[in-house]
Each structure stands twice: as structure tokens, then as C-alpha cells.
């Protein structure tokens, strides 16, 4: 029996982003996610764990999984490092100097969420990702968002025109539930268009899958499973980085990513 070939040639690699002290790299895809069939790059998506300095904003069932260390954001971040996270997603509401302290304690890449902080460590020391409207990169990476690939492309183009050099495409609220198929389509579309030559979309994609913790689950196990499967869906769609709230999901996302990337 003669079976048609279904493999595809690898494309030119998309943009890579070196994070932290240059020892973490995201992006650089040259195919649809993970497909050996298409010569996929063997690189696992990075997993960022959320830390916040406003414990009230964190669902209690998630915070309680950190054995009391959630009371001190620096300790919380160190615990994420002990758990094997690739980076810290710092939901910052207060003193901007916390960014430097967490960076120094963990030496992990950091995503600074929440309001744009007043001051960040020099990008020569450690490259971070800064989210938030109006955030300026000052050498760090800024995020572009949009509800369609066209919108994201236009936003990336605008940021590039204004001098930003490092960018990440951020998809918020990615999770199993209503809207999942739209989010999956968005991430897939971004990856496919980028590979097809849309240079505005060549940047790494980061999906925040932590939203399932806010859906009122009675226990942490179900929320963790939902978050882990959401992370899996995001990675399968083409996310290069995922932001999670629970340690269980972080562990599963890392293991799934390693297996899918054949590491």
C-alpha cells in the first residue's frame, strides 16, 4: 500500500527571547507545536508560577498549597524555584523593589504583572517580561495582546514602531470552559501566520491559564486538573510559555511539555 507523505518541511525559526540572565530561552519554533513529523524543535515551553504581594487577590485554595510561605512573596518565589518552575509571574501591587529582591533570591526569569512598576532592575542584569497597558520595556520585553491574530499583529507592529525590541504575545484567560475554542484558534492562528511569514507575529506566545482558580471550585484537586489540562491545551496550540497558579499544574505542564518535545 502506498501512503501519501503528510510531513511538512520546517520553516525559518521564529524569534527567540532570552530571559533572566540569558539562561532561559523561549520561542524559536519552526513548525506546528511538538510535531516530529514536521521537524519540530525539541524545546519545552517555559512554566511560570504566580506570586503576589496582595494575598487577598489570590484564591485561598490556591494560596494554601504553599505551606504558609505565601505570606512572604520572596519565600513564595523561592518555593516555586524549589518546585521546578522556570520563572516567576509576579503579580505586583505594592513596592516595586520586590521585583529586584525576587530576582536576586531566585535568579529566575520574571514576568511582572499588574500595574507597571515604577522601577525595574537594569535589563543588563536580567531580562524580564512586563505586562500591563502602557508598560515600557526599557530593555525588558513588553506584551502585545488582541482578540484576533490581526489585532495582535497590528499591536506588535505599533510597539515595534515605538522602539520596543523585545516582545511577547500574551493571551489572557486561556482555560478549559467557555471561550476555549476561540483561545485555541487564536494561538494556533498566531503560530500559523508567523510561520507563514507575518513578521509582526514572530514573537513568543505566553498563555495565562490561571483563571480556572477563580471559578469557585470547592477543592484544589479539580482546579489543579483543570489548570494542567488548560496548560496542555495552550502548549498544544502553540504557547511558548504558560503562567500557572498551582504547583500541581506546574509540575504536570513541565512533564507534559518534556514528553511532547521528546526531551
Amino acid at each position, binding site marked *: 500500500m502506498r501512503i501519501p507523505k*503528510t510531513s511538512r518541511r520546517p520553516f525559518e525559526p521564529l524569534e527567540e527571547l532570552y530571559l533572566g540572565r540569558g539562561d532561559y530561552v523561549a520561542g524559536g519554533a519552526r513548525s506546528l507545536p511538538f510535531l516530529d513529523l514536521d521537524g519540530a524543535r525539541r524545546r519545552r515551553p517555559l512554566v511560570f508560577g504566580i506570586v503576589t504581594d496582595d494575598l487577598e487577590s489570590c484564591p485561598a485554595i490556591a494560596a494554601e498549597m504553599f505551606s504558609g510561605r505565601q505570606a512572604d512573596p520572596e519565600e513564595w518565589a523561592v518555593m516555586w524555584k524549589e518546585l521546578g518552575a522556570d520563572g516567576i509571574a509576579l503579580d505586583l501591587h505594592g513596592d516595586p523593589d520586590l521585583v529586584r529582591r525576587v530576582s536576586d533570591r531566585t535568579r529566575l526569569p520574571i514576568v511582572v504583572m499588574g500595574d507597571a512598576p515604577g522601577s525595574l532592575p537594569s535589563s543588563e542584569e536580567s531580562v524580564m517580561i512586563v505586562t500591563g497597558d502602557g508598560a515600557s520595556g526599557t530593555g525588558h520585553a513588553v506584551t502585545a495582546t488582541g482578540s484576533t491574530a490581526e489585532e495582535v499583529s497590528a499591536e506588535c507592529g505599533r510597539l515595534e514602531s515605538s522602539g520596543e525590541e523585545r516582545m511577547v504575545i500574551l493571551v489572557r484567560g486561556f482555560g478549559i470552559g467557555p471561550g476555549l475554542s476561540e483561545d485555541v484558534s487564536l494561538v494556533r492562528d498566531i503560530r500559523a501566520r508567523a510561520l507563514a511569514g507575518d513578521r509582526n507575529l514572530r514573537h513568543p506566545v505566553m498563555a495565562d491559564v490561571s483563571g480556572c482558580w477563580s471559578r469557585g471550585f470547592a477543592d484544589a*484537586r479539580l482546579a489543579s*486538573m483543570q489548570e*494542567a489540562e488548560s496548560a496542555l*491545551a495552550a502548549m498544544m496550540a502553540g504557547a511558548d510559555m504558560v503562567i500557572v497558579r498551582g504547583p500541581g499544574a506546574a509540575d504536570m505542564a513541565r512533564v507534559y511539555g518534556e514528553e511532547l518535545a521528546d526531551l
Partner: protein
Amino acid sequence: MNGTTIDGHNVSEDDRGFALSVSDVLPGDMLSDRLSRITELSDICKHLRFVCVRNDSMSLDLFKDAASATAETGLGLILESGDPLALYGVVSSLPDRRPLLCITDVEKTQETAVLSSVTGCPMAVGGRGTEDLMENVEAAEGCGAAGIVLCPGYTSMKGCLETNTDLHRLASEHSFPQSMHPVMSRTWSGEYALAVASVSVMTHGSLIVLDDLDPDGCEVLDSLMNHY
């Protein structure tokens, strides 16, 4: 891509379903309890539409008893055995049902296809790799199988991703005749089985058969099938 009707339930990429399994070695009370739990779960999880009866005992009588008890749940029936005669024995005892016939011994694909043709029951066709699978489908079609579900023999989520993508491209880009059937993933129990099932859903799988999954896992898989 074509859909297949299994015991009165349509299965296709747009009409997904999953099954939990019961073993025919379970004593009567335990079998009843397990079937009750699966039925209760199916009230919550609308994609839990099937029960797979495994012929672990290799005894026809026990297989018949377990299948008969399972048939009373009203859920779609999937029969899994290494022996085509055992499959035939059970199907003969349930004349109003058209379960999916799963033969665990790939070497007996053609015998099962003849059985499928005679009874009007669809069958799952397995294979080691895409080429082997397509050849087995061609053989089953040649024997007049009443309906076919592809059952690739992968053992990991990576294998599921690669094989399901390969099969989907054969169907959607090449209209390769033997690939134009729903894809079934056979997996085990626990969190890794849920991950394989999830990858299958994300790569055009239509039917997932699990040995077992707890209520939380069923809820997650059902939600994924609802929204993906």
C-alpha cells in the same frame, strides 16, 4: 471524514464520546456497583456515552454476563476481547444491540471483520503504525466490515499527537480512503490517561476508551470535549 454509529450512538469528530471500562472478572455485586457509578457519572458528563466490557476472564459465560448487565445501563456498548468467537457469542446474546467490536489481537482483524459484516456491528481496527493500520483497514473493508473506527496502537501522549495528526492529514489533505474513519484512543487510568485522552481530543480524536477515570477526571475530560 465519516462518522460511525456505535450501538445507536453516532461518533465523529463533531460528536465525541468517551467510555469507561468494566472487567468481566468483577464479581456480581462489584460489577453492579461499578456500573451504577458509571451511570451516575454519565448523568453529569454528557460525553460519557459508552461502557467498554473487557473479556479479561477469557470465559464466554462471564463475558456474556458482564455484557448483559452493562447493556441494561442504556449506555452504548463496546466489547473488547482477544477472541472473535467470544465477541460473536456476546453479540448473539444481545440481538437488539450493535456494539463496537474491539479485537485486542491485531492478527485476528479479518476474522473480526467477517463477524462485523455478519452481525452489522462496527469494529475497531488496530495497527502498529500508520501503514500497518491502513493495510488492516483495507483488509477489514475487503471483508465487508459494517463500520470502522481507527484504533492506532500508541502508548503515550507523544505517540497520540504524531499518529492522530498523521491520520487527520491523510484524511483532510489527501482524502486517503482508509483514513476516513473516526479515530479512537485506547488508554488506561489516572492522570496520565487523562493527558493522553486530552491530546487525542486536541488532535481530532472522536472516541476515547479509558480503563478508569475518577469523577474529577471525567468532569475535566467532559468539559474539554464540550469546549475544544
